[in-house]
């Protein structure tokens, strides 16, 4: 731990700057992801409010990728809402992906593996969700 007491050494300073850079990249990616998903959700909400229609029968909303995609092509408000919600769910996943890249750049092999492992768990979760219907 002794070397941690002196962050002024060139190596420590470089590490800190790199970490700072990583956090900035992640912040920017998150912000873009959040803004895109928020914009899509907002468009969907406005469509529902102003047209008064959901695009589907009462109490129905699309939950499969296929149904959502064909609903978007037909500009159905609920399909657009579901797309926006799905993009929002993907934002933290995207953060994990960017973190892997950032740790690779920093040559922190241990955290490349740890972060990749988290991503694999997330993908398994999606798979379980899909087959669990």
């Amino acid at each position, binding site marked *: *731990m002794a070397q*941690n007491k002196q962050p002024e050494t060139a190596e420590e300073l470089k590490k800190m700057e790199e*970490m*700072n850079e*990583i*956090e*900035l990249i*992640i*912040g920017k990616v*998150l*912000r873009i*992801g*959040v803004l895109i998903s*928020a914009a899509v*959700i*907002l468009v*969907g*909400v406005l469509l*529902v*409010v102003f047209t*008064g229609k*959901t695009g589907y029968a009462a109490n129905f*909303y699309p*939950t*499969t990728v296929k149904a959502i995609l064909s609903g978007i092509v037909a500009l159905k408000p*609920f399909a657009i*809402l*579901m797309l*926006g*919600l*799905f993009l*929002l*769910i*993907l*934002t*933290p*996943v995207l*953060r*994990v992906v960017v*973190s892997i890249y950032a740790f690779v750049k920093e040559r*922190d092999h*241990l*955290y490349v593996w*740890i*972060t990749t*492992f*988290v991503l694999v*768990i*997330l993908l*398994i*979760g*999606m798979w*379980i*969700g*899909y087959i*669990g*219907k």
Partner: protein
Amino acid sequence: MINTILLLIIVGLGAGIFGAIFGIGGGMIVTPVLTLLMGLDIKYAIGASIISVIATSSGATVAYLKDDMLNLRVAMFLEIATTIGAIAGAVLTGVLPSAVLYVLFGVLLLFSAWNMYRKMRAGKEKTEAIQADSLSTKLKLNGSYYDNAIDKKIDYQVSNVPGGFTMMLGAGLASGLLGIGSGAFKVIAMDTIMKMPLKPSSATSNLMMGVTAAASATVYFFNGSIRPEIAAPLAIGILVGALIGSRIMKHLRARVLRMIFIPILFYIGLQMFLKGFGVTI
């Protein structure tokens, strides 16, 4: 439907502000409001709530990243535990009856209220000198942050990594099961078990919530528990609320906030618990 949508945006705003301030992801506020006040089935409330958790986390993270308060390595390492727990929890929710979910949710809120009270009684936030264990050094978990309130950079060590990791498995399970951010459990794991200071603990917890929630949210998304007309307006309100909340948080003292929040949390917890047994107060 338009009135409901506007109401949900306002609920979202409130949940976002409180969620960011307390590091509880908004889920603890959203589910009681949707079930107790709006009469929604708890399974759909949990689905909308998990979306709220992601929105709170993503909205707040943008602000925290600039503050350098979070510890990215601690977050990544412990997310292994929370995501595994979250997937198990989401699968369980599909199987358990609603009454059980109400009781569990009530117990969770009562516990959170008690936990906040206990911490308040413990007095001022103190920065103890902690001996880092060999595991936390090996995993490079020790860090530092800049405290605005006292205008000083604080270095800290992390201890008891296995204990924190185990607690995070439970936090993930609760998150997936009840659609909450599990912020209280995550903060306990970091601040009480691993001895991290409160501010980086709650910033890191906020960051972890999004990834944890994403793990169970896909399960809810594909099995139809996420209803767009409920989850979407909530998400919009929460995104904006979380941004406001995380700005306010920097200028507030945790103690005053907790004092206001504890009795509210206790009362809602009691209501949820009793609803599981069919009693309304």
